[in-house]
């Protein structure tokens, strides 16, 4: 029996050693990769100064809406400083101007590519996926080079980036190894030869730089998007808006949208079907309105090919909602019908329809609830420099009134979405706006 005891002891020692090594690696393991300095880079400095390359990069950086995250409220463009709230803690967005100390001034294209394509910092450290490399990995080498050339052409802004303030164990970068195994597939977009060039361009933009799926798909408890969930809609963590499903086919969030409707919304901020608001309004203003018509049409072509969705489960309301909805109809008649129409069809180019509007009928009711509370202007774009607006009703309607009117518009006309309860409204009344 001596040998058995020895074997057990050996196994125990091995297990302890393995665990110890794992812990040491988790806490202290650093990737000691040497950055590639600009002098060591295979890309000549002259290449990065090519005005044509810089111009093309400027367009791509707009398509990617890099400025949307890489600037603080009222701060210099691309100088970072915004705190990105995640369920795991706050992540300060870095400065990507070419400042040598606090920005990308000492970065080579190789470093930039490693970040964008592989989600690793210039020392090989794993980057937090608040930086959406899960999408950017699909960006081609040439496009990445143009973007880098543009970013390096910006005036440097000195603004150091704070360290991430994440909760344990997410504060350990090496914990991302497991996350990446689950959610990250490195690789440039591969064209589908069975599809048109336009479709492929659209797929490349939507899946890659546009990083649409980062919001328009549900995130699970680890903050990842399961690989088979593609543009099926989801609640944006912390921001608490619902990014709708993007299929135009049966039961899709954009069911019945023509390609032109999609182009219109992205170009002008509104279409015959809806108006962009919340975070999507920012995306339209800063990014998509600047895209070429050809690229917008490509995006629309691709979205049109998304498959039909399963019919949502018809949940029975947890109580008899007839009185609630009737009360909502009264409020609608008094407060909403003058603009959105008794039939909920809105006024084209002025006020959006509510009938058949996916933002009204999305699964959670958050969008309609918060739109009623916040009101606000339609996106301010080249096409609509003086947009119409909606009053914020937060100061005028109680939680119970908001739940009534939202429940009404979710069930009126052709809409058939679940009612919203008073407690849901109170939850979103105090939601931060950023």
């Amino acid at each position, binding site marked *: 029996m001596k040998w058995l005891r020895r074997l057990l002891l050996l196994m125990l020692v091995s297990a302890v050693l393995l665990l110890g090594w794992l812990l040491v690696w988790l806490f202290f393991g650093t990737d000691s990769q040497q950055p590639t300095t600009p002098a060591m880079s295979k890309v000549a400095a002259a290449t990065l100064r090519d005005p044509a390359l810089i111009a093309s990069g400027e367009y791509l950086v707009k398509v990617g809406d890099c400025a949307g995250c890489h600037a*603080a409220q009222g701060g210099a463009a691309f100088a970072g400083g915004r705190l990105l709230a995640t369920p795991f803690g706050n992540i300060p967005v870095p400065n990507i101007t070419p400042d040598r100390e606090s920005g990308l001034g000492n970065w080579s294209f190789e470093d930039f590519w490693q970040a964008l394509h592989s989600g690793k910092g210039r020392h090989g450290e794993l980057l937090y996926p608040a930086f959406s490399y899960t999408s950017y990995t699909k960006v081609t080498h040439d496009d990445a080079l143009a973007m880098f050339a543009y970013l390096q052409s910006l005036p440097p802004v000195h603004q150091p980036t704070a360290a991430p303030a994440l909760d344990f164990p997410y504060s350990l970068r090496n914990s991302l190894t497991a996350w990446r195994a689950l959610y990250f597939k490195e690789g440039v977009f591969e064209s589908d030869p069975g599809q048109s060039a336009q479709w492929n361009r659209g797929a490349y933009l939507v899946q890659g730089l546009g990083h649409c799926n980062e919001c328009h798909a549900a995130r699970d408890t680890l903050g990842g998007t399961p690989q088979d969930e593609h543009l099926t809609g989801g609640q944006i963590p912390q921001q608490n808006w619902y990014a709708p499903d993007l299929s135009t086919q049966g039961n899709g969030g954009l069911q019945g949208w023509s390609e032109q409707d999609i182009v219109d919304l992205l170009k002008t901020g509104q279409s015959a079907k809806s108006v962009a608001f919340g975070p999507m309004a*920012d995306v339209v203003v800063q990014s998509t309105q600047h895209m070429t018509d050809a690229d917008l049409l490509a995006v629309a072509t691709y979205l049109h090919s998304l498959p039909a969705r399963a019919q949502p489960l018809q949940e029975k309301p947890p109580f008899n909602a007839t009185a609630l909805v009737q009360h909502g109809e009264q409020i609608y008649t008094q407060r909403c019908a003058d603009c*959105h129409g008794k039939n909920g069809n809105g006024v084209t180019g002025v*006020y959006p329809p509510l009938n058949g509007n996916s933002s009204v009928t999305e699964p959670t009711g958050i969008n309609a609830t918060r739109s009623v509370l916040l*009101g*606000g202007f339609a996106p*301010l774009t080249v096409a609509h*420099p003086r947009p119409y*607006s909606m009053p914020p009703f937060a*100061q005028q309607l109680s939680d119970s009134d908001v739940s009534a009117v939202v429940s009404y518009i979710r069930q009126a006309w052709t809409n058939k979405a679940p009612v919203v309860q008073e407690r849901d409204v109170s939850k979103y009344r105090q939601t931060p706006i950023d």
Partner: protein
Amino acid sequence: MLLVAVTLFGAAGHASDAPTIPDTLQQRIVACTSCHGVHGEGKPGSEFFPRLAGKPAAYLVRQMQHFQNGLRKYAPMEYTVRQLSPAYMQEIAEYFAEQQVPYSRSPLPPVTAETLQRGEQLVSNGDPTRKIPACASCHGTQLTGVEPSTPGLVGLPYDYISSQLGSWRTHTRATVAPDCMAEVASRLNASDITAVAAWLASRQLPADTHAQAAGSVKPPLSCGVLGATGDGA
């Protein structure tokens, strides 16, 4: 002919469903007027929504910019104005600046005669021992403001004035450096604020409520908002 008739009928049929929306600025900015009043007269009963009518346009533009860049903190305003262009903000500001509507009086909290007297003293003369300048030294002899960037203080509700002075102290309201108003507010204590707000809110309005001409005051502090020449020009 038939086609024309059908088209006309179709258009008329649709139009009868859809509300008729006037193409006016007033209609476009219901997000503003639902709280501040159609003519920017404020909202009686909701004293935290200030009157905008007749305030200098440059002052109003600056406030919207401050909500955009985070110098002023109030989520509903930040959300409403976050995307507005300089041109649209200018147009909106001019609309409110041009409005001439009567002031409404709002209720005062119960304050003693001493408090009101203390308020008058601070507004008119300041408190030199604590380096508090008189309100009138910047906001005009009649406290109706000074073009282009200094707002009037008369006709504002007690709740609004006291909450704004509190905001200056807690830095949820600020302006460009050097931020003289933040400096002044930091020298006021809670009872000063009550006194100043109560006296201002109790004051009868002068016959002419327009802001004084630009350059007609000499501010005792250096103010970024007034520019290098001190008059905001």
